[in-house]
């Protein structure tokens, strides 16, 4: 997708920056094309066509560092921009920890951009007519009358979209790292009213790097959104207290993401992490293992290198409750003395505990509690790990769902929460960047 001329311009930027006095330069070229067809209640509502290009320069000069970007890929505009950029870097304070990564840590096997297996040749045959056809096929609004039993479907809104992304990282030490991917996705949201006029909404989405992977979801996504809305009709009370929680596959990233942020080198160096000084220590339940799997070919999140061009690798992040890895880039490594790894996680995979395969197994194991199917707001304290989130879902008893619940809150501390991880199923959604199966927690504060 990036043209030879655009790549040549990227190389020219390196030369220009070096000529202006930079000691080292990294250039990232990004180009993407996204087409979207929005549907509203069975009709095409919006068609968008988005072509983006940008060039980002990381400039090292006189022991100083700065980042700059622009989207006008014309050499005349570039020259003045780079001159100003180098001058700006030179007025910053010197930073002895800023330098380019070691050459032997950089990726060498990302030359075509297609090594991660996320590029679909079928993309090139998709045209506007096909997009409109797929979008129209995805709506269930034309069958509205036959679907409405005990509720009315007030609104159905969704979209089909496809994209191609091309990223190339070059640097003044000879790095050439390319990543090309295609993506197809479908999203729907349904709003229904019960017989008393009370409103409920539900959404569903799916995505795939391949057209063949998204086609099954084209026919089922809107129906799943509707089913999830209808399932919430008739919410009842729940007494709360310290109870067991099952967290549905695909919605638990809110509980994992703060852990990954706490493992970031920047958080550690700034002492803004509740996992400070935890490397090599058992902090969580021994049933908790999460691995980074960036090298899984064809996965929805595989990538061969990070933003510095460092080669990614499959590795445990937390294994049996023991913290195995911080995410340490070149800068933080120099600043803290920690060994460098990669800048951040690419494709976290939470490992099944093997004793439960499905959501039903998890409910049976826990017996009684709340199945969380979505979060509504909330946040956490990055220094202490304290959190409080709005939750919605279903009460269950005897391993069976009894009624929907809403307007409830789960509150606690991440370390304690993950110490109370009881089981992990084996049902992670294949489309998810964060592969997290249904989770079982005990002893969680819910009000």
């Amino acid at each position: 997708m990036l043209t030879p001329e655009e790549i040549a311009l990227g190389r020219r930027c390196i030369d220009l920056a070096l000529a202006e006095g930079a000691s080292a330069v990294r250039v990232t070229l990004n180009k993407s094309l996204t087409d979207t067809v929005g549907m509203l209640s069975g009709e095409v509502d919006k068609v968008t066509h988005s072509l983006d290009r940008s060039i980002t320069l990381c400039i090292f000069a006189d022991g100083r560092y700065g980042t700059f970007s622009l989207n006008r890929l014309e050499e005349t505009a570039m020259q003045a921009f780079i001159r100003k950029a180098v001058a700006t870097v030179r007025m910053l304070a010197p930073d002895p920890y800023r330098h380019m990564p070691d050459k032997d840590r950089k990726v060498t096997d990302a030359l075509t951009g297609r090594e991660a297996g996320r590029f679909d040749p079928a993309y090139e045959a998709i045209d506007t007519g096909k997009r409109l056809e797929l979008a129209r096929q995805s709506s269930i609004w034309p069958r509205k009358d036959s679907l409405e039993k005990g509720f009315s479907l007030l609104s159905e809104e969704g979209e089909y979209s496809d994209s191609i992304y091309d990223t190339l990282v070059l640097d003044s030490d000879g790095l050439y790292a390319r990543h090309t991917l295609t993506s197809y996705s479908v999203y729907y949201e349904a709003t229904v009213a019960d017989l008393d006029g009370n409103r409920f909404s539900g959404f569903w989405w799916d995505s795939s790097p391949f057209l063949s992977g998204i086609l099954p979801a084209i026919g089922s996504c809107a129906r799943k959104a509707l089913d999830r809305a209808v399932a919430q009709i008739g919410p009842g009370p729940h007494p709360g207290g310290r109870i067991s929680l099952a967290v549905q596959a695909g919605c638990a990233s809110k509980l994992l993401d703060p852990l990954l942020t706490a493992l970031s080198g920047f958080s550690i160096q700034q002492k803004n992490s509740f996992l400070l000084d935890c490397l090599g220590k058992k902090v969580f339940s021994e049933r908790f293992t999460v691995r980074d799997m960036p090298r899984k070919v064809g996965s929805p999140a595989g990538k061969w290198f990070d933003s510095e061009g460092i080669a990614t690798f499959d590795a445990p992040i937390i294994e049996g409750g023991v913290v195995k890895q911080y995410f340490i880039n070149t800068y933080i490594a120099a600043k803290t003395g920690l060994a460098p790894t990669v800048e951040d996680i690419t494709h976290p995979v939470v490992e099944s505990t093997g004793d439960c395969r499905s959501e039903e197994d998890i409910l049976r194991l826990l017996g009684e509690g709340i199945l969380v199917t979505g979060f509504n707001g909330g946040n956490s304290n990055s220094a202490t790990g304290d959190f409080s989130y709005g939750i919605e879902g279903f009460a269950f008893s005897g391993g069976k769902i009894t009624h929907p619940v809403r307007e409830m809150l789960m509150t606690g501390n991440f370390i304690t929460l993950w110490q109370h991880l009881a089981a992990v199923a084996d049902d992670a959604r294949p489309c998810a960047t964060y592969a997290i199966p249904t989770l079982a927690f005990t002893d969680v504060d819910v009000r």
Partner: protein
Amino acid sequence: MIKDKQYYLDLFGVDEEILRRLAAEGIARGGDYTDLFFESSTLGMLLLRDGEVTSGGEHLDYGVGIRVLSGEKTGYAYAESTTPADMLSAARAASAIAGGGAPGDLRVNDLLRLSRDRADSFAEAAANGSRLVRKYFPGAPNPSADRYPFRQNWADTPMREFVPFLNRLDNAVRTRDSRVEKVKAMLSYDVRDVLMFNSLEELKYDTRPLGSLSVTVIFSQNGKYDTKSVSRSFRTGAEMLTDSLLEEMAAEVVKGVDERFDARRPKGGEMSVVMGAGASGILLHEAMGHAFEADFNRKGQSVFSSRMGQRICPEGINILDDATLKGNRGALNFDDEGVPGQKTYMVEDGILTSYLHDRISARSFGVSPTGNGRRESFRYPPIPRMRATYMESGNADPESIIASVRSGIYVDDFSNGQVKIGEGDFTFYVRSGFLIEDGRLTMPVKDVNIIGNGPRALADIRAVGNDLRVDDGAWTCGKEQNVPVSCGIPTVLVSKLTVGGE
């Protein structure tokens, strides 16, 4: 700041004849209305960490977004260059929504007249009682009415001039509290030149400055760490970096640190909540603001969809969304559809009187657009968005409001919120506050989420203080696209909300 028209035409390399041709292109394929949104932005950032300003950068973004409306349907495309060929290509891609064939032999003047005739017919067809519907917004921008004049353009000022300010801020924080472990201070600015033209031949232009300063501090005490952040953001130039701002932020970020280390989770459950003046305006933003955005109501998704003209909260309460606060983060001379920024009352004396409209929803409801059509950048079509959302002062003394609560919680420091439009369930996250016991503030609390239902929370307002304050923090609303907003409220008592706790 509004400069002269030629400045903007030269910046984007266009003239009025090209603008008219592009607008006509969308109409030629069957569209009703076309608009063009040119934008050139300069974003700068400086970061102080570990006592030094060691990171910084600048980012330039430039392009034009072209939207074609066919009825209430939208076609949208953009170009990152403003050569006639690239813009024409984008206009043709956007006009695909109309589904028409190749252009006929109508001339530019005929096509633009057609667009105007269609706009006339929409308004005439609107079922709007006898209310006046404003259809057109002609006239040149008026520099003397500028809502964000500035003296020192961020983009023209060498970054080195900002470095000493960040160093002094770092020092001011550290000298105030010996428990300061780390200080991170970030200065960012965003200066945008925009030019808007549409098939009704309305031409608008604007220069929008936005300066933001934030400071995050990590404190340590007896082996424990905690964090606090403070931010300020204004539509103004670099003259915002004053000594008084520095002192105010340094004082605020270390204020209440004793309480943070002493704070505990309250016993959770349903209780009275006193929302402190200022940042508690997040309640309005989440509990009702989004549900009043007219796109959600046009699509029948909002919990307030069928409640126009009805009482939704007690008498005496007025809630508005305002683009006219000079220098405010939510201020706008024009929205991103060229509609003048204005003050929009959504609730008057407790009655729902207006949604927040862009041109599409205004046409659908048969009312005038309210200047709420906003977008993150030229890459996005505009949608109804809030600006500065606040509640007007009431009559109660804030201290008497707290004194009236036997058991509850007082909150005044927040991070984020969220709402489910269909159900109206909203949440916001409280970074700090106090328990209220027998009318007095007692135990400090922190890090709890509060959840409620919009219509019920509005109906459960029991007292409104006389101390309206609009918060100057760097609030950003993330509905599909990120836009700067602000919020405010006087001290307010809500009789029942659910508070997270142990």
